[in-house]
């Protein structure tokens, strides 16, 4: 019994694999009805399923596939031309075959009330008998005859089907030819046998069995020598759980490897120059290399070709285009691209949805296309390729494309975005609107899209795989959807960053670049800090603010910004340190701590400490919320705390010692702290480096750098934009004053002045009453 169960399972796995291929081949067949290779391939699938099915006593399935085989055989021999109508029937029977197989998988047999194969069988019969589909009638006698026929064929199928996989196309064709001849002989015999008594039936079966065995033996000797033995052993079906287990173990190994490297580095520091270090180094490196190779090797065992997913789409497109009355051609490229099994399983649904979307919303009706001067047939291209550590799946259509303005208007109307957001939005961001919940641009809800499962679900599913979606579109020309997903889920490359003293791992796939900036590089837009990076303006958020980490480190002169990107949006993340790049193994935080915003999991580092892994998509969402309370606000707050003259530092800049003394005397008594500089250069360096100057009294005529230039230089820095600069000079002409305002002086005082006047102007500029 167990053995039977095993055979049954193998049969099902094989059958489902074949059916996947079958769908694609059938659609292709419709466009190339004369392709003999294709026909042979399809015929073989029906034939194999029929054979195994009958061996397993799956009568209904056997009967159905047998009738399919008849039709396909006729087409193969050129006696029948495959038309759309015939193809509909064949596809219907393939669907039914799938349903039966699913039923077998679930219940163990093919007896079910839900599936009635009779109507399809009758139609298939009609086709193979050359009748038109309308004059279909049940011919029970014929059915019976066929069933007898099936029984006798069990043995030959069982014996031969194994060979097919290892044969070259020529060999296969020869094999099929041979089988057919055999069958015809059998048919002849059967017709004769039928005339005899029923009791003789068993004898006849044995007869045919003997007959079939012999030619096969001959065949083996001739065309498949030795090769067969070696190839049979080349693949093993392995339980996925075993692979998963292996993958987990590799994960542990990678962690231990990291730890070993860490320890080696420590030891190297301590025992520098010692002889044993060389040997240790060799061992550590070789373990590290082997581990990496092992990891890749195990990863590869879990890899499947994406063609497995792509295969079902030609059928989808065919059905869709017929349903919608559109002409669509699907071009598939890169189906040999490999992806982790778990990703392959998850990517099917989102892709299906996006393809439906492209056909339904993207491609126009044939009339419309002709009017626009395009070819009647729309093209949807499905392409997969490797890009670094990622796989890119591209869905391109040459349909009507999307207009960012219309998208924005729709989004506004539905309240998905605010007017302000709409204004700020780039075209790429506008395209991403279609992934927002509650957004659908389809004017009418068709059977195809608009069934409540929107593109937002697509995006969520892709993000679950650590992937991202990019959209580009030109109105009238078409759209391109790019899905980027990592090769594997368990082990990733990450950038380790520090927020205050805590470390976080940021998946490298989402890191666009890292830059070191100074505080002056930060500018403000509507009170929020932004960074101008080349021709882009990035919102800046401090990581410590996002995760509400207490700030124990002072603000240093240099800031590290990690530029993160998800889809079209980018954010600059201010961190307190960049530690480096490392390969990390993702571990879950467990049931209790799951679902923490912005955290995707944790990893254990070489030193045994746990480091949290950032969920970049969620982090960027948090960043947008945190952005309001930005760095600039906090600096302004600290400045506001100053209330008395004693809290302020005033810089006096003058080359004349006397003038400096006069100025000092005028304001010293009020309590200001005073610093002095004798020329513009010195003043600038004091302002920049001391960073505590609250106002400056500046002479114009000075050596090295005059007052005007000094003011200009100071105003170049963002943080000194509002620093009060008061010119104190003997230049009294109007043009001098105008120049002073131009370069950014707040006040212009001419010598001589009274001490009270100077003090008052200073106090006014520092907003002291």
């Amino acid at each position, binding site marked *: 019994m167990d053995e039977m169960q095993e055979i049954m399972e193998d049969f099902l796995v094989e059958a489902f694999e074949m059916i996947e291929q079958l769908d694609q081949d059938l659609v292709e067949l419709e466009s190339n009805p004369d392709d003999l290779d294709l026909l042979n391939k399809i015929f073989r699938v029906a034939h194999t399923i029929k054979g195994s099915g009958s061996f397993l006593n799956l009568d209904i399935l056997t009967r159905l596939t047998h009738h399919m085989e008849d039709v396909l055989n006729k087409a193969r021999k050129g006696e029948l031309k495959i038309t759309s109508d015939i193809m509909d029937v064949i596809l219907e029977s393939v669907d039914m075959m799938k349903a039966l197989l699913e039923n077998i998988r679930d219940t163990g047999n093919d007896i079910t009330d839900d599936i009635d194969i009779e109507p399809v069988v009758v139609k298939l019969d009609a086709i193979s008998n050359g009748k038109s589909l309308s004059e279909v009638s049940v011919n029970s006698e014929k059915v019976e005859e066929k069933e007898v026929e099936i029984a006798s064929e069990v043995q030959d199928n069982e014996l031969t089907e194994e060979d097919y996989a290892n044969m070259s196309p020529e060999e296969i064709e020869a094999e099929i030819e041979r089988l057919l001849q055999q069958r015809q002989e059998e048919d002849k015999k059967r017709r004769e046998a039928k005339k005899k008594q029923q009791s003789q039936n068993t004898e006849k079966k044995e007869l045919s069995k003997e007959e079939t065995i012999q030619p096969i033996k001959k065949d083996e000797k001739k065309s498949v020598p030795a090769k067969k033995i070696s190839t049979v052993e080349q693949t093993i079906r392995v339980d996925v759980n075993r692979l998963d287990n292996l993958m987990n173990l590799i994960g542990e190994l990678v962690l231990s490897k990291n730890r070993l490297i860490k320890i080696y580095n420590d030891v190297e520091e301590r025992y520098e120059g010692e002889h044993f270090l060389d040997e240790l180094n060799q061992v550590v490196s070789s373990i590290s290399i082997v581990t990496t190779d092992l990891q890749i090797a195990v990863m590869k065992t879990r890899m499947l070709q994406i063609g497995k997913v792509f295969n079902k789409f030609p059928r989808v497109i065919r059905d869709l285009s017929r349903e919608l009355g559109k002409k669509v051609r699907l071009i598939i490229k890169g189906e040999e691209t490999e992806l982790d099994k778990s990703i392959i399983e998850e990517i099917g649904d989102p892709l299906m949805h996006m393809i439906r979307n492209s056909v339904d919303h993207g491609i126009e009706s044939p009339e419309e296309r002709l009017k626009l001067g395009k070819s009647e047939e729309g093209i949807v291209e499905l392409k997969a390729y490797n890009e670094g550590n990622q796989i890119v799946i591209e869905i391109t259509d040459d349909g009507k494309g999307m207009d960012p303005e219309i998208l924005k208007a729709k989004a506004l109307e539905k309240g998905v975005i605010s007017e302000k957001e709409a204004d700020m939005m780039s075209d790429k961001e506008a395209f991403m609107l279609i992934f927002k919940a509650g957004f659908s641009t389809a004017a009418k809800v068709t059977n195809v899209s608009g069934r409540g499962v929107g593109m937002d679900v697509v995006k969520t599913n892709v993000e679950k795989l650590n992937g991202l979606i990019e959209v580009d579109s030109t109105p009238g020309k078409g759209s391109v959807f790019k899905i980027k997903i990592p090769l594997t889920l368990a082990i990733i490359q990450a950038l380790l960053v520090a927020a205050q003293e805590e470390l976080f791992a940021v998946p490298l796939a989402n890191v666009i670049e890292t830059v070191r900036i100074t505080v002056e590089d930060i500018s403000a837009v509507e009170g929020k800090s932004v960074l101008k990076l080349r021709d882009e303006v990035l919102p800046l958020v401090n990581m410590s603010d996002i995760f509400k980490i207490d700030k124990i480190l002072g603000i240093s002169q240099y800031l590290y910004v990690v530029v993160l990107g998800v889809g079209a949006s980018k954010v600059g993340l201010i961190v307190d340190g960049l530690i480096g790049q490392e390969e990390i193994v993702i571990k879950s935080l467990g049931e209790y701590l799951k679902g*923490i915003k912005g955290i995707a999991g944790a990893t254990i580092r070489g030193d045994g*400490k746990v480091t949290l892994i950032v969920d970049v998509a969620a982090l960027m969402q948090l960043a947008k919320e945190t952005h309001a309370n930005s760095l600039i606000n906090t600096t302004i707050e600290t400045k506001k705390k100053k209330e008395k003259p004693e809290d302020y530092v005033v810089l006096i800049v003058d080359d004349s010692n006397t003038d400096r003394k006069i100025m000092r005397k005028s304001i010293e008594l009020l309590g200001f702290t005073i610093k002095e500089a004798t020329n513009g250069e010195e003043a600038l360096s004091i302002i920049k480096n001391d960073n505590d100057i609250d106002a400056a009294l500046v002479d114009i005529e000075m050596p090295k750098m005059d007052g005007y230039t000094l003011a200009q230089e100071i105003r170049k820095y963002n943080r000194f934009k509002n620093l009060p600069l008061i010119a104190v000079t003997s230049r009294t002409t109007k043009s001098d004053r105008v120049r002073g305002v131009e370069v950014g002086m707040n006040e212009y005082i001419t010598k001589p002045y009274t001490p009270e006047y100077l003090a008052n102007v200073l106090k006014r500029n520092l907003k002291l009453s």
Partner: protein
Amino acid sequence: MSNQLQNVIKQQQEQTNLTTSEQKEDNIIQLVGFIVGNEEFAVPILSIQEIIKPIEWTKVPFTEDFVLGVFNLRGNVLPLIDLRKKFGASQAEFDDDVRFIVIKIGDELAGFVIDRLTEALRIDSSSILPPPDTSMDREAIIEGIARKGDRIITILKMTSLLKTKNG
């Protein structure tokens, strides 16, 4: 293995020798007692995976204050919950007696910070009283109250210890 744990086991063995003859095994439950703040608590001995001295942990943002973070127990990342903070006990220093008790709750492992261990307890289940009516909030996490001499021991309900968010 720490001396403390060895002591606990030794005591337990002594207790086993003393009591087996007197009482029916069925009614006896074995617990490990520990102090949090000023109170003595206990959890079933079989739910305890191990007891370790404090090790380094990593803070996790957006969690309640009694969730200290996560720590690494031989390659597993486990949450660390400070029972002293959870029960509102004032002392939050880590002295030499502080231990992490790693408990298996359902399929999940978690570490709990306690002030110090007391001993392994053998208590007749019939002598365990239901939680008092007054303990309102804590009622949900209390399985029952046991008396041993003049000591009052609160037995914690394992399943509630890891109730997410509001637990």
